[in-house]
């Protein structure tokens, strides 16, 4: 139910008499679709306004851009590894043997007007797609937006993140150029390292020995059919839940757990969100017209022999590539006539555990707090100090893996040894998150303390006055009730007490839960209370 009242002047003409094309068309539609019910239900639905809520929108819009530009590309791209002699416009590669996939990608780039532009729009939008999902997830994590009732939507969003990376990788592999072939070679090597099924999985995937003549066609099916269908389905689910739950909102005067404050879909939200789509599209278009991306003509067709140093995968694959680089040497283990390829399995396991931990974090936190209420007001990150610190640790972990993917560039750029860079990053991978955790937690608690001070005594104005008694004090500007509400409206959790259950036993789960709960909530600062504020009025300077 929306309580927005329309501005008076627009409501005067009551039910125009039937007439006019719009009215006739609306009537025609409604008599066949019941669309009026949808307009009534959703037309004035309220969406809160905050810049951080735009990150998810960017992700959605870049996906639309990807679909539009990608459809154009499919009209020209040939997903075939059949050998052809290139006869297009790009002179340096004339006559070179390459796959039809590579040749048609070159044709798109050099022989079709606007083709290069669409390729670059597609690639840039793909990078933006993954990046905006990542940032959106950070926003959701650090504000606690994943709490009940939104835990499942977090998982759905996380699946979308994985799907986006899969889309990116399959797309990157399609032109069958030197770099994409090397990327596939790495995947092939990793797949072969999987115990029991690895060798056969690779054999089936590539339709024989690497590289074979099948893989581009197969990745193409995944890239334009299966994966986009899954992305669409999960986006639909994701948005369906946004509608069911209604959007979260930040703490603010008048905002409660029972309302949602913002602008109605029609007209303001539609104008802003619709306009924002065109802005995102425009920015991608501008970048695509100014900056080259993935110049496959410089790399040439795939050949297993040449490779150049310093080539980078797309940014979102970096963390996996970095994980591979950080594994120690000589980890193969031959047991019972079989090889356990720990040099590959170890990084895969570490990354796998990280991914699973991120995916299920909401359930872990819900279990620790035992809080079964719905939460629609977002936390300020500082007020959930332990969660924010865990998030910072996770970001650090990811960042170290990501930096490791550029270890060679770091080494040459800063003239340090490769060994030094790798060893440092190996240590940082485990120490870095711990440091980040403690530093972040301290900072959060410090900020909470400051908020408390401000809520009670107001801002420090920097003005020093001398009291009649000779004492010097700094004048504090009092905060308004509205500002104070933002500083003092959050909730506090306390560590769980271990209590025996109904049969007088203390279960292991209980002990674990109590331990985690102590870890989470031991260091905490209580929000300001009404009594405190009232008594602080007494000593207002």
């Amino acid at each position, binding site marked *: 139910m929306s309580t927005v009242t329309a501005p008076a002047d627009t409501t005067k003409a009551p039910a125009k008499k039937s007439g006019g094309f719009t009215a006739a068309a609306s009537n025609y539609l409604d008599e066949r679709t019941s669309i009026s019910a949808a307009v009534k239900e959703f037309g004035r639905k309220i969406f809160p306004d905050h810049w951080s809520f735009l990150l998810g929108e960017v992700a959605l819009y870049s996906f639309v851009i990807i679909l539009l530009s990608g459809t154009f590309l499919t009209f020209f791209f040939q997903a075939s590894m059949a050998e052809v002699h290139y006869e297009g416009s790009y002179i340096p590669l004339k006559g070179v043997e390459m796959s039809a996939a590579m040749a048609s990608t070159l044709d798109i780039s050099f022989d079709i007007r606007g083709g290069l532009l669409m390729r670059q729009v597609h690639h840039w939008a793909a990078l933006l797609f993954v990046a905006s999902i990542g940032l959106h997830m950070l926003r959701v994590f650090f504000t606690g937006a994943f709490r009940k009732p939104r835990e499942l939507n977090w998982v759905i969003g996380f699946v979308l993140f994985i799907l986006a990376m899969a889309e990116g990788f399959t797309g990157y592999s399609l032109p069958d150029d030197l770099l994409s072939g090397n990327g596939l*070679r790495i995947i092939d090597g990793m797949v072969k390292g999987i115990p029991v099924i690895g060798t056969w999985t690779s054999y089936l995937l590539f339709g024989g020995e690497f590289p074979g003549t099948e893989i581009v066609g197969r990745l193409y099916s995944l890239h334009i059919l299966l994966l986009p269908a899954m992305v669409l389905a999960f986006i639909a689910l994701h948005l369906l839940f946004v509608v069911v739950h*209604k959007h979260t909102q930040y703490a603010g005067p008048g905002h409660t757990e029972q309302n949602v404050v913002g602008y*109605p879909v029609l007209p303001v939200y539609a104008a802003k969100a619709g306009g924002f789509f065109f802005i995102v599209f425009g920015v991608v278009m501008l970048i695509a017209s100014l900056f080259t991306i993935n110049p496959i003509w410089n790399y040439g067709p795939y050949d297993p022999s040449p490779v150049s140093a310093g080539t980078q995968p797309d940014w979102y694959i970096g963390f996996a590539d970095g994980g*591979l680089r950080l594994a120690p*040497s000589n*980890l193969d283990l031959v047991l019972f006539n079989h090889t356990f390829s720990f040099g590959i399995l170890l990084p895969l396991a570490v990354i796998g555990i990280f991914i699973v931990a991120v995916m299920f974090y909401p359930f872990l936190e819900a279990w620790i707090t035992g809080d079964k209420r*719905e939460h629609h007001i977002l936390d300020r990150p500082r007020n959930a100090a332990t969660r924010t610190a865990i998030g910072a640790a996770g970001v650090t972990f990811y960042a170290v893996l990501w930096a490791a993917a550029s270890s060679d560039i770091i080494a040459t750029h800063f003239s340090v040894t490769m060994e030094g860079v790798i060893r440092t990053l190996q240590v940082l991978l485990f120490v870095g998150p711990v440091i980040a955790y403690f530093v972040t937690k301290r900072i959060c608690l410090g900020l909470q303390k400051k908020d408390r001070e401000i809520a009670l005594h107001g801002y420090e104005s920097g003005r020093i006055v001398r009291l009649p008694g000779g004492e010097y004090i700094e004048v504090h500007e009092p905060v308004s009730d509205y500002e104070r509400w933002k500083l003092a409206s959050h909730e506090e959790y306390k560590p769980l007490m271990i209590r025996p259950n109904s049969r007088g036993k203390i279960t292991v789960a209980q002990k674990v839960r109590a331990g985690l709960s102590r870890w989470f909530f031991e260091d905490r600062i209580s929000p300001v209370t009404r009594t405190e504020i009232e008594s602080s009025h007494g000593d207002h300077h």
Partner: protein
Amino acid sequence: MAQDGNSGTELAAADSSDHGHGTELAVGTAVVATDAVPNPGFPPHRPRVTDLDPKKEKRAERTVYTLFYLSAAGSIWAIAAYMMFPIEPENLNSVRANNLFIGLGLALALLALGIGAVHWGKALMHDQEGIDMRHPTRGSESTRDRAVEVFAEANEESGFGRRSLIRNSLIGALIAFPLPAVVLFRGLAPEGPEANPVRLLEHTMWKKGDRLARDPSGVPIKAVDVTIGSVFHVIPEELANLGHSEGYLEEKAKAIVLLMRLKPEDLVEDEDKKDWSYDGIVAYSKVCTHVGCPVALYEQQTHHLLCPCHQSQFDVTNHCAVIFGPAARPLPQLPIAVDDEGYLVAQSDFLEPVGPSFWERH
């Protein structure tokens, strides 16, 4: 939030029932504050300049429609650019101009349209916030009861719970029916007695007497051409004659070799591998034992090979043992000799599989 005559009361009501929605839900370890700071309610609405100053409003209106016209102009520009900057065959600059001018036109069209719409929304549209009330996600008790009832009725009417034979056989059938789909995927790779990935991985096309040739020309290499400190990228001579459809890339992916000459005294060789080299010339698989990138970089001073993919390093003086990086095993060595005409030849295939580790390797 001035327009919300009832918001104050809603707010008060909401506060008192805090979170509860009628059903009391466990708060866990949250501290339920009895002494919390009260929600001050919505602050008074502050009008925008465009609400107060008709001139500013007019100007905003002008900005919005100018932007929309500009957007249309951008679209037309893009169409014009499509025609005015055609791609001339073999002229890279024409490609660049085509890309740039169509792109700029489209970017203008999109950005002006977007900015115009957002500006309209921000500066001119009714800007007072509205409120929706939330309802608990959980269905109401009566809805939930009815849902349970529906299932109970369906169970009763179908006998799903009662007729366990039907139920269990149904579950069995449902488990079995996707299995054929799994089997169908066997067709992804060639079948038959030859089709064994393990066998394929264990061999490369090198065999006794094959000349070592330059990659990619296929010109065979004489031992005398290999000077100390030099490095050659090598393929079997026959590979160069292979067409792409005859497995050129697949064979090449396994058969590539690096050939280097060191001072014989620099080489530390195992007893049983002493005759695998020829006068300080050694040949090693170029396929990294990590995940298979070509180990393309040779560091002359240190005699180290470096894989550019994940920086594994191999010591050529010591049978290409891994000295750094994630690779798991030394690069396999290709035993070489010299034929009557002075060309370098292979003594045999590699004696172990090349490239990344796999399960069946031992």
